[in-house]
């Protein structure tokens, strides 16, 4: 097995809330191999974005990484100086965001925004940078790229802007791409195009991709590995086909069953209640309050992330006793 491109270990992120530090993301660990697409899934508020930002140290002054390490190619990003970190961002690791409409600077042309990264990290001349900008816009499928680099973001549609974002992320040939819900704001037809593009890039350039999404359809379509987050913790981590076929955590199972499917397969079930907010995280299993399989043991104390059958990891005391394959919840009681 090759060494991971990115290795996150016990990442814990805290935010200053009313004067005290409150952990929002706790002990997140996962790896991304070169050429691999890793999905980070979970409900809204489960800490996906916070984890991503923490990787690149993009959380503002109100947040801090209190524990853990982020090894990129063996280097711990958390111990770099601000300046060294700026050299990593956009150069070795690029990031794209959910909102294509607001993530581009409205005051500058698309071309200059792409050229800017190239000049910053490659020290390219104006002309070279411009050439590179046209190249990458072409790569992401913007028609007539050469004539559009002088346009401003508002002259592009949402899908095209997301492609511009991707082009910008790729302009420096990064080895790793972090994409935080890159398609949520887009229509399915456009989403399909963007996902295809990302998959191609991973495959063709050996780029590692961390794809954040809450859409299991997207996961099923594009990912190799899946990391499931719930209330700031990784609850399960496994290879894509396996986790869909045999979820080992009740939350993963619930998530999958609660999804309406276009193919109409499967009964829809609902996970009752809402996830806890960071200030209400219990000491014990954080899903216990909503878990149909919860027993007294679940509330006994913190649950560790343990190796999982068939590889990966899972955070559940009953994982071995439960068979969570598309079975109605009642039948187990």
């Amino acid at each position, binding site marked *: 097995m090759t060494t991971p491109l990115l290795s996150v270990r016990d990442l814990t992120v805290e935010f200053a809330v009313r004067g005290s530090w409150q952990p929002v993301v706790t002990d997140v660990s996962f790896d991304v191999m070169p050429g691999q697409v890793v999905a980070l899934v979970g409900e809204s508020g489960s800490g996906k974005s916070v984890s991503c930002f923490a990787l690149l140290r993009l959380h503002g002054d109100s947040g801090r990484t209190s524990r853990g390490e982020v090894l990129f190619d063996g280097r711990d990003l958390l111990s770099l100086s601000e300046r060294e970190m700026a050299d990593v961002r956009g150069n070795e690791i690029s990031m794209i965001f959910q909102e294509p409409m607001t993530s581009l600077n409205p005051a500058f042309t698309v071309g200059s925004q792409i050229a800017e990264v190239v000049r910053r990290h490659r020290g390219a001349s104006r002309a070279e940078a411009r050439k590179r900008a046209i190249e990458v816009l072409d790569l992401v499928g913007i028609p007539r790229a050469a004539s559009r680099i002088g346009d401003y973001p508002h002259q592009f549609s949402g899908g095209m802007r997301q492609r511009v974002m991707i082009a910008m992320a790729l302009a420096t040939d990064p080895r790793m791409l972090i994409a935080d819900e890159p398609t949520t704001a887009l229509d399915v037809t456009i989403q399909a195009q963007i996902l295809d593009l990302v998959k191609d890039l991973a495959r063709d350039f050996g780029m590692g991709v961390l794809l954040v999404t809450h859409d299991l359809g997207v996961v099923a379509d594009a990912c190799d590995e899946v990391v499931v987050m719930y209330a700031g913790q990784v609850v399960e981590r496994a290879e894509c086909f396996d986790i869909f076929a045999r979820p080992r955590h009740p939350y993963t199972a619930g998530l999958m069953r609660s999804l309406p499917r276009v193919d109409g397969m499967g009964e829809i079930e*609902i996970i*009752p*209640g*809402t996830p*806890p*907010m960071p200030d*209400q995280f219990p000491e014990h299993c954080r899903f216990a309050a909503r878990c149909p399989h919860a027993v007294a043991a679940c509330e006994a104390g913190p649950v560790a992330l343990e190796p999982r059958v068939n590889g990966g990891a899972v955070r559940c005391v009953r994982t071995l006793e439960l068979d969570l394959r598309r079975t109605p919840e009642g039948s187990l009681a």
Partner: protein
Amino acid sequence: MSVLPTTRTVVESPRRRFVRRFTGPWANRFALLVLLVWLVAAVAAPWLAPYDPLVQDIDARRLAPLSDGHLLGTDALGRDTLSRLLYGARVAGLAAITSVGVGLLGGLVPALLAGLLRGWWDAVFSRIADALLSFPPLLLALAIVGVMGPNLTNAMLAIGVVFVPRFYRVVRAATLAVREETFIEASRSIGTPTAWILRRHVLPNVLSPLAVQISLAFGFAILAESSLSFLGLGVQPPDPSWGSMLSEGRAAWFYTPWPVIVPTVTVVLTVLACNVVGDGLSDSVGREKGRA
């Protein structure tokens, strides 16, 4: 199925939330206190003032504060500074209220109409407001005073005219913004009559930016009044106004700085309070930042 609110469990109406947020920072509380003090001073000046503000005592000129029964001393004519300050608060308050009143009278209704009806109304009113805005504020006031004659009423009228386009703009913008809010559409979709929508949905939402403007306008009015009085264009002597006190005190600056210091501190503090309250208002109204 249980869908209990996960957020705060205290019941909090928008008004209470506003009060909580507004009274949070000490600066806001302090500013509010200052304004309250002046309000009381202005209303109760005749009862609070230890002396008649116009009575001169040439033998007790330019007393320093805390001397001879004069808490804040006396001016070059032996008039009690504290009493003049209190009566000056009346002038300032009156000035602010008149001018803001004129501004509201001229700005509010056209703005609501323009924002709601759009089209022709909007075009006409907005052109007029633009034109008014292109007059530099103090100069417009100066011109009006110059033509109508220098006295406080005219000065305040003039400053009121200055406020008209400003209030107009704020209210119109807020009306337009509210108009676009989905909850207005939602209410319309229910079949709510327009008048009800105006009263129940538009007005309350327009009031908050307006309140901010009003408190800033109060500050500006006090500043403008003191500037005009300083130039001899506002309150006519010997009536006390903070600006004229300053201007008079200035002539005797060499003999004692107190008649200058006292009104200066007063003006600065009061205008400061108005601005702080304005800022506080704008920070406290509206929805909670970020989603609950």
